[in-house]
């Protein structure tokens, strides 16, 4: 299912079924004139659906570039099948060891840098919430969208697969935000929540963020971003408080 997040950013929503709850394993399309840039490539698990969604979204003309937040399999699972190592489709990745990550031909983007990809200006940001050293968050200057990879996720009910944050009755539930981060960013048990809040605040101050686009959650738009942030801060405090080193 493809849902518009901002005028030129589309969400290709894909779900993994954890019995009662779903977890998104999504990707995003940036449309720049006739060019289409993919942010992350999803899991091999959804390959057929992703391939046909992209076929439709590009009117059959295919992608022009793929940017990876990191090389983790559920994010980088379709790089080759979508043509990410061919001459016509540029591959951009953050890894400092592309050969060890299985992406020897990628153009490197470094955290702190700004790159132009197919006419789109993108900034690469040190992610306060991630599951790999070389993960980068990606900020799209055109539409003000922050792509947060493994941060800002949530589980959802089977009828909420294509919801953006404003489709929920009272925004994305705090409990779903908490359970996602507890299960997936296990290291949060050791953090001082204030240090992460400070890092997030500085990102949200530096960049004008109209929408947050996670891979493992529903996109968060407009004023919902502030509500999400306050629920996320509660989550961080709760995870840290619940883990007792003894």
């Amino acid at each position: 299912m493809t849902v518009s997040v901002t005028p030129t950013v589309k969400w290709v929503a894909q779900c993994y079924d954890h019995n009662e709850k779903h977890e998104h394993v999504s990707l995003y399309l940036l449309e720049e004139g006739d060019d289409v840039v993919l942010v992350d490539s999803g899991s091999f698990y959804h390959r057929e659906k992703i391939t046909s969604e992209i076929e439709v979204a590009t009117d059959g003309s295919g992608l022009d570039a793929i940017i990876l937040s990191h090389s983790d399999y559920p994010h980088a699972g379709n790089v080759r099948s979508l043509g990410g190592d061919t001459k016509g489709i540029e591959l951009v990745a953050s890894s400092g060891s592309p050969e060890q990550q299985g992406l020897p031909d990628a153009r490197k983007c470094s955290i702190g840098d700004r790159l132009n990809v197919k006419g789109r200006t993108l900034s690469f940001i040190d992610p306060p919430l991630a599951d790999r050293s070389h993960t980068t968050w990606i900020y799209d200057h055109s539409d003000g969208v922050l792509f947060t990879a493994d941060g800002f996720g949530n589980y959802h009910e089977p009828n909420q697969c294509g919801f953006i944050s404003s489709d929920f009755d009272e925004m994305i539930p705090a409990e779903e935000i908490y359970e996602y981060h507890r299960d997936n960013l296990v290291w949060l048990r050791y953090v001082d929540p204030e240090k992460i809040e400070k890092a997030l605040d500085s990102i949200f101050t530096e960049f004008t963020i109209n929408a947050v686009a996670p891979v493992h959650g529903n996109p968060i738009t407009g004023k919902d971003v502030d509500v999400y942030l306050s629920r996320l801060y509660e989550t961080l405090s709760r995870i840290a408080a619940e883990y007792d080193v003894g």
Partner: protein
Amino acid sequence: MNREIAPGIHWIYEAGSDRTEQFELAERKPDWYESGREAYVPQCAYLVEGDNETLLFDTLSPASTDQILDAIDELVGTRGLDYLVVSHPDVPHAGNTYAILEEHSETTLVAPAYGNDHELYKLDESLQVAEGDSIDLGNRVAEFHEATFLDAPVSVWMTEQKTETLFPVDWMGFPHLDEESLLFVDELDGTFDASRLVEFHGRVLFWYQYVDVEKTNAEIDNLIEKFDPEIIAPAHGLVIRENASEYMELMKDVTQTIDNQGRIGTLG
């Protein structure tokens, strides 16, 4: 390149690329670095031979598929590889899993029981292990542990009881200079400089910049008490086989240093 650490435990080593430029070592001049030298952060896999069965811990990166396949042939020969343990499904650790399983139909894939999306890593049909689980190889036992300091949620640590070796995966890695490949830490010239550990953890454990230092260091004390190892065999460093717990103690200074100075950069 391989080296036997203790009878029946083999260290399989992949250097990766020279990090001098990526780490800006000539300009930054960290204490551990000697100017003009090359510097490496290796990928290591370990092969454990028991009287009855054999076990490989991690696979090296996809840049070294032939190397790991050759090392398995050389080390287990006609005995075959009974278990392949994937510490976590990160490309540089697990990238040759399917190449190995294709060559070795006799091998049982072993994966961490932690995390909840094994299917997305094609690990759903593996033998899944968590704290308290073990595999008896004959005269020696591999025991599994929750990975304390990790990146991916699907992660596991291992110990080998006979030699009291701890395999802490992404924890306790560090860079080394050219000509130090496959040396034990006690064979290095001079004293071991803790800034090596800072260089690695300030990159790979990106979240160390946000920790509660007191809480994290209390956890390190717990680990020292729990494992008190004779040997530490990290995935991204040289093997420590003397005074191993003292190096775990050093990790408390590393936490404090990264808290003071912030993240150094990336690796991955």
